[in-house]
């Protein structure tokens, strides 16, 4: 991948991933408001907004983060299965996307119920649920770990990565032997 394209892919990946992290933080705030508030209208608004953020921010950014991560790793020497930290991020990203897609059903249910309850304050308050707080909190922790992995890039290559590295070094050495430098050539042919 050309350096310019690589930097663009990296920028897109960081933007999507950080945006996802921020959106999860916003969802956590809404979830806490929905759970802790004694104001029925605030509870209603919180669950309605959770669905909007989920559908129009969380899901698109989650897929964007996954796709740009795949492009960025497969298009560079990092590879997808060569370094443990890249592999760990892939597993965490896939897990988060799957759980998010499954949990959107629950969010849809809560938002639907909140939208239909217009007159009963008691009904709205009974709708309060700790589940969105737990899920958003876990997602936030997972994304923070993924961000930390990206920054620190802890050491460790997989067997596949070590084999690829060995192959590349062998090819490099063979190429260096096959094409002598100008000075070496000068020594042979004065």
């Amino acid at each position, binding site marked *: 991948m050309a350096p310019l394209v690589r930097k663009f892919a990296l920028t897109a990946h960081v933007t999507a991933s950080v945006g996802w992290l921020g959106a999860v933080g916003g969802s956590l705030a809404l979830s806490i408001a929905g759970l802790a508030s004694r104001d029925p209208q605030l509870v209603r608004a919180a669950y309605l907004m959770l669905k909007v953020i989920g559908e129009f921010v969380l899901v698109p950014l989650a897929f964007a983060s996954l796709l740009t991560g795949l492009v960025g790793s497969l298009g560079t*020497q990092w590879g997808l299965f060569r370094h443990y930290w890249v592999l760990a991020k892939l597993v965490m990203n896939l897990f988060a996307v799957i759980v998010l897609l499954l949990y959107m059903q629950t969010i849809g249910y809560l938002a639907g119920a909140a939208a*239909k309850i217009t007159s009963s304050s008691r009904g709205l308050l009974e709708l309060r649920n700790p589940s969105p707080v737990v899920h958003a909190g876990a997602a936030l922790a997972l994304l923070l770990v993924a961000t930390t992995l990206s920054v620190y890039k802890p050491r460790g290559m997989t067997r596949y990565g070590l084999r690829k590295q060995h192959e590349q070094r062998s090819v490099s050495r063979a190429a260096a032997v096959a094409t002598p430098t100008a000075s070496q050539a000068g020594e042979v042919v004065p």
Partner: protein
Amino acid sequence: MADPPRFPEPDDVAAVRPDREPTTGPPRWVKVFGLMGLVLVVLIVIMLLTGHGPGRHMHGGLGGRTPPSSVSERGV
């Protein structure tokens, strides 16, 4: 002013330096991550088996409680 540190290439990182690369097995942090992942998977399986999986809120009430009467009246 000094140039900002450039984004490291794979050749720069400790992961590919011979002096820091373990000769056998994955690093400790990978084992810790793997163990935590395994515990998480076990917890999820237990929750699914005990009826705390996805779709619970649509069929079984809210957190094990009875759905709000105003919701039930509207057929949700």
